[in-house]
């Protein structure tokens, strides 16, 4: 690093060179450096949010100042806001770790782990799966319908043991198919997956709306939703008393799957194929990887993971399929970027998202801060933490050999060998 820093400080001007140098350094950053970067980004976002809260607090009128600084009164107290945003998600953790607020955090985190690793797997194969939402919606819908259909046949503990794995399997299967379609379109018809997955999101959401408001609508309901599943068909929640929407068991499953996916990528021949074709397709081809097949399988796997996320959403949070599924699929993209597309890192990134989602509820309830401002604060955090990783990904994608201001390969080859 010393070399580059010197080179940098010795060079006034040459902003393009410096930009590429910065990208190169970001790409070359070690794990510790990346953690430090993320940490500082988080602090920076809080500092800016702090000022925003103060400014917003000056612009509203309120009975008594919630916070005063140098004799100036502010309507919102930034310390309370950030305290609620981060720690609110854990509720009164020391007194009762299994409180309701923490349950919300757990359930949000669980679904986001699945959608996060779904995006990460596809990205590792060099495919940008924006269709996580559609795959999740179809997985959720199929899971809700099939589990409801069979819930009459079994019940009790046996019902749980049969129906929950079945629900997950159905979600995985349908989500997998929905992911494999854009994969096959890319592999065999050269259709850009970004476009096709976005379009298939609309197809999935609209078709699900049709089914949930028509043929499979719960007859006694005004909302567009399917029939409610019996409690024995849901994920068991042995630890959160009185809650049906959160399951540590589901979270444990998510963690196991994330670790399993990490192993699949690193420790198996299939994972080798996936990573090689994602990182350098030409070399993958040379190494005997069937590029088209790898794209289809990794997209199917990605869709299956998003589909399981949908099934988990139905079997923990929702209890049936309702239209207007939250944007877990899209949040999964950010989770994956935040985690640098590392499946295990996605657990931590999903937790951050879960904490922020759950914490904003506490801010909404506990303070006068408008929900829009809380949204801004959340967005700031995500934006700041994700940006370094995002630029890192761009840095990896930029073909250094194709740019004039490039460095290492320009040196290594000296330009003298290609004719």
């Amino acid at each position, binding site marked *: 690093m010393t070399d580059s820093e010197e080179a940098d400080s010795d*060079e006034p001007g040459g902003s393009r060179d410096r930009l590429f*140098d910065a990208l190169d350094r970001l790409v070359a950053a070690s794990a510790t450096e990346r953690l430090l970067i993320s940490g500082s980004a988080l602090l920076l976002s809080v500092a800016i949010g702090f000022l925003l809260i103060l400014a917003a607090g000056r612009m509203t009128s309120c009975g008594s100042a919630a916070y005063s600084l140098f004799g100036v009164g502010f309507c919102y107290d930034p310390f309370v806001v950030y305290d609620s945003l981060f720690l609110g998600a854990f509720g009164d953790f020391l007194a009762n770790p299994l409180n309701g607020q923490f349950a919300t955090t757990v359930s949000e985190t669980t679904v986001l782990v699945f959608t996060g690793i779904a995006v990460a797997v596809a990205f590792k194969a060099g495919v940008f799966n924006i269709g996580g939402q559609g795959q999740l919606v179809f997985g959720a819908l199929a899971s809700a319908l099939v589990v409801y259909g069979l819930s009459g046949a079994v019940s009790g503990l046996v019902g749980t043991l049969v129906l929950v794995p079945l629900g997950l399997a159905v979600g995985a299967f349908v989500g997998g198919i929905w992911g494999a379609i854009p994969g096959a379109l890319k592999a065999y018809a050269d259709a850009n997956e970004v476009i096709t997955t976005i379009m298939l999101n609309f197809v999935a959401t609209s078709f699900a709306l049709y089914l949930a408001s028509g043929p499979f609508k719960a007859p006694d309901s005004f909302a567009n939703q399917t029939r409610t599943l019996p409690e024995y068909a849901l994920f068991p929640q042995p630890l959160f008393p009185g809650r049906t929407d959160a399951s540590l068991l589901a979270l444990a499953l998510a963690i196991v799957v994330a670790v399993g996916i990490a192993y699949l990528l690193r*420790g198996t*021949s299939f994972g080798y194929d996936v990573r090689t074709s994602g990182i*350098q397709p030409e070399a993958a081809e040379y190494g005997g990887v069937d590029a088209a097949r790898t794209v289809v399988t990794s997209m199917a796997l990605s869709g299956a993971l998003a589909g399981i996320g949908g099934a988990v959403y139905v079997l923990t949070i929702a209890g049936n399929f309702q239209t207007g599924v939250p944007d877990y699929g899209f949040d999964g993209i950010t989770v994956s970027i935040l985690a640098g597309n590392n499946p295990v890192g996605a657990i931590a990134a999903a937790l951050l998202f879960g904490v922020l989602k759950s914490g904003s509820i506490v801010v909404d309830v506990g303070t006068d801060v408008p929900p829009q401002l809380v949204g801004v604060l959340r967005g700031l955090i995500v934006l700041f933490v994700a940006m370094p990783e995002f630029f890192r990904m761009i840095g990896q994608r930029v073909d250094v050999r194709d740019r004039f201001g490039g460095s290492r390969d320009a040196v290594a080859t000296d330009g003298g060998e290609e004719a």
Partner: protein
Amino acid sequence: MTEAVRLDSITKRFPGVVANDDVTLSVERGTVHALLGENGAGKTTLMNVLYGLYEPTEGDVYVDGDGLTYEEGSEGDDGLAAIADAPRRFDSPGDAIDAGVGMIHQHFMLVDPMTVAENITLGNEPRKWGGLAVDREAAREAVLELSERYGFDVEPDARIEDVGVGVQQRVEILKALYRGAEVLILDEPTAVLTPQEVDDLFEVLEELTEAGKTVIFITHKLGEALEAADEVTVLRDGRNVGSVETADTTREELAELMVGREVMLETETPPATPGGPSLTVEGVTASDERDVVAVDDVSFTVREGEVFGVAGVDGNGQSELVEIVTGLHALGEGRVELDGRDVTDASRRERTRAGMAYIPEDRQDRGLVMDFDLTENGVLGSQHDAPFAERGRLDWDRAEGHADAIIDEYDVRPPDTRAEAKSLSGGNQQKFIVGREFARDPSCIVASHPTRGVDIGSTEFIHDRLVDLRDEGRAVLLVSSKLDEVRGLSDRLAVMYRGQIVDVVDPDEVTEEQLGLMMAGERPDDVPRAERVAAGESEDSTDTGARPGADADAEVADD
């Protein structure tokens, strides 16, 4: 002496690499100066500094096409007079062009459907109607005038796509001259030319220096530096290791400067004792990505225990041919057979499993995954096969041992299985690929430019290993644009031109002139043809013309 260019103590650092280390280069006005060095020695980086593409980390650039002015009576420790002019600051190539520096890149930057005159004046077109329209007639006149002044033979109205590579290069030179270049930098100008075109280029360079222009050309070919330049500066590992007048130096001296030790320039290989056919290519035809026919009805057989060479100027279908043989390029017609098995439709993986090793032309795109470490790269191509994979799982300990063995045997540096491929120099990357491919225990080796960009020491080593493998009875298909390499190693040598095999010759008998002619598509009558080897029924696919003694060598000579 009056210099046109002085690079004073230039250092250029990139993250983790010093590309130029305190390099001083002095170029006399009106001369041809060769910048000689192996790939990776820092030649192009240095010239990019002069052309304003890079800013030097340290050091000064002085340029004046009419000659620099000096402080009177001053002479530094290094024998160079102190310069009175201010050092130049080039923030971009535009600044360099304004200062009279022009660079001709290896890859031409021309617009194919436009005419020669349009390309030359592009960006600085003569205007008419108050600047509203391009004055084509004036442009044409200007180009004709320039072209005549320097004795260039170019047709201003020809389209770039219709003219040959040699002419395109001259158009690039004219473009630089049109923009007022006094100092011309040519980056590996001969890489894409036939020997005849190279001679023409050197004549052009002479014309230019006679007219007072200064030429710097980058090359890694000793012979060219000696032939065309007045003075040669040798770079090694980013340092200037010596500048010599071509009149007072020899090939051997320059080679020694380049690599830092004495090298053998020719390798003597014992004659081959070929066995039965291993790789057979029959009537293969294929198009490139632009749907232009790249390989046109090519047939040949490589026998066990022989090196079959393919020579030719780059871009005459060799790359496509190699990729067809290795299963990476779709073929339109024909068949490929490996050890008696039809592999025409076999996938890349099946061919590797059937015993085909492949050293690809482009090691950074194909041969290595740049972001993977050497352990991971060591299993590329074998990731589904024993001993590295068992029931879908990879045995990384074994893979690491394998990478370690390659590093050991092939002296790859740094000797670190955890090093990422991109952190290795080009030569070490190549050694690792060669080691990995040879370790497959292949029956047939396809080697495409196996020593391109590799230092002379490693080149010798790779050549020796290729010959060893041949002597063990393996078949070797060797494609290279280095004539010494294909001639020195091959037992039979095919020359390709425009997708066809012009002829198959005996490399020990053929002369360089004959090869040059064949590489330009001609077929001298008296070339010494190699023994013909036909596979099965198709005997008359390689040669189409009259063959002296065709009867005698029509039959396969397996003994």
